[in-house]
């Protein structure tokens, strides 16, 4: 039987839950809106190498797995009765921003896995893709820093 000092603290559980769910939600939005509804992104445009494919597979499987795990951990944190909104929202935004920034910079530009859209000038689309990611990331980290000052209730 684990005693209170060896169990993961509730704050860390909330943080992990928010990060996982944030990345999962951003990944789901990317998949549903841009792949399935708008058909802007291509399933695989054959322009990237093996490293890109492996990275994309890991990211895809990782984000939807993260969403499920994040929901379970959030439910667990809530039943423990120590839900701290700034901490959780900060983690959620950080997770979503990190996914969006990584997807826009590393996947689209470095690994050239697929582009935001085809047959158009990409500069505006790339800025519109990465900038919200960076903003989410900054907002998330700012909330997390604020949450550190809130004492655990």
């Amino acid at each position: 039987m684990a005693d209170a000092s060896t169990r993961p603290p509730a704050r860390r559980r909330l943080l992990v839950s928010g990060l996982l769910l944030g990345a999962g939600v951003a990944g789901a939005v990317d998949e549903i809106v841009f792949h399935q509804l708008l058909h802007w992104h291509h399933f695989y445009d054959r322009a990237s190498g093996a490293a890109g494919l492996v990275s994309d597979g890991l990211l895809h499987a990782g984000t939807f797995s993260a969403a499920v795990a994040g929901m379970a951990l959030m439910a667990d944190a809530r039943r423990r009765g120590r839900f701290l909104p700034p901490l959780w929202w900060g983690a959620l935004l950080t997770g979503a921003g990190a996914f969006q920034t990584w997807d826009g910079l590393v996947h689209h530009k470095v690994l050239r896995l697929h582009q935001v859209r085809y047959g158009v000038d990409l500069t505006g689309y790339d800025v519109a893709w990465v900038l919200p990611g960076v903003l989410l990331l900054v907002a998330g980290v700012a909330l997390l820093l604020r949450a550190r000052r809130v004492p655990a209730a």
Partner: protein
Amino acid sequence: MTAVVLALLAAGAYVGATWRCRSPWPLARTASWLAGVAAAAVAVAGPMGAHGDLRAHMAGHLLLGMAAPLLLVLAAPVTLALRALPPAEARRLARLLRTAPLRWLADPLVAVPLNAAGLWLLYGTGLHGALAHSPVLSAGVSAHVLVAGYLATASVLAVDPAPHRRGVGVRALALAGGAAAHDVLAKVLYAHPPAGTVGAEEGARLMYDGGTVLTLLTAAVLWRRWYTSREAVRAAAQPA
């Protein structure tokens, strides 16, 4: 035909065991077993055999390698066997399950990579093309897909008792890793379809999307079982 006979035997053995079970056996588990057996039989008798058309083949692959194993694992056949067998034989079965080879196969860090490696061998080498010409080879591969899928799903969900169960984090990561290998393979098949197949692009997309849905279902079952597990409930009830 053989598939139908094997399916009837599997269904009969399970239902027979529920009658001999020493405690009432949940009807939902029996239903899950029968559905799993039916899914596997339909896959083998129907679309798995369509090696030339990758769309039909992948529908069969998802049924046999992912959907049927999930349903069979949720039926907890080992638990049923342990409760239905006479005590001496149940103890022998429990001892057998603790032997090294079976313990390894019940470890998600072994069973999931084995399952993925089998798929890569099947589609990455000439094996898939050879299946069309050899019924024996085809039957062997079908059996392997079902058994490897079952072992991987069983090791991740841990519905049946296991001597050294991995933590929920390791099992969730193994599931995600297996899904990633499945995704990458689907895209490789999309770009480089096996020789002599049609419908490769749609087949590969079906493999990718279907794999995602079934992995999501498996993950939901995994985390729901964790949330309601005795350890997690007890830990949550303790004051921090």
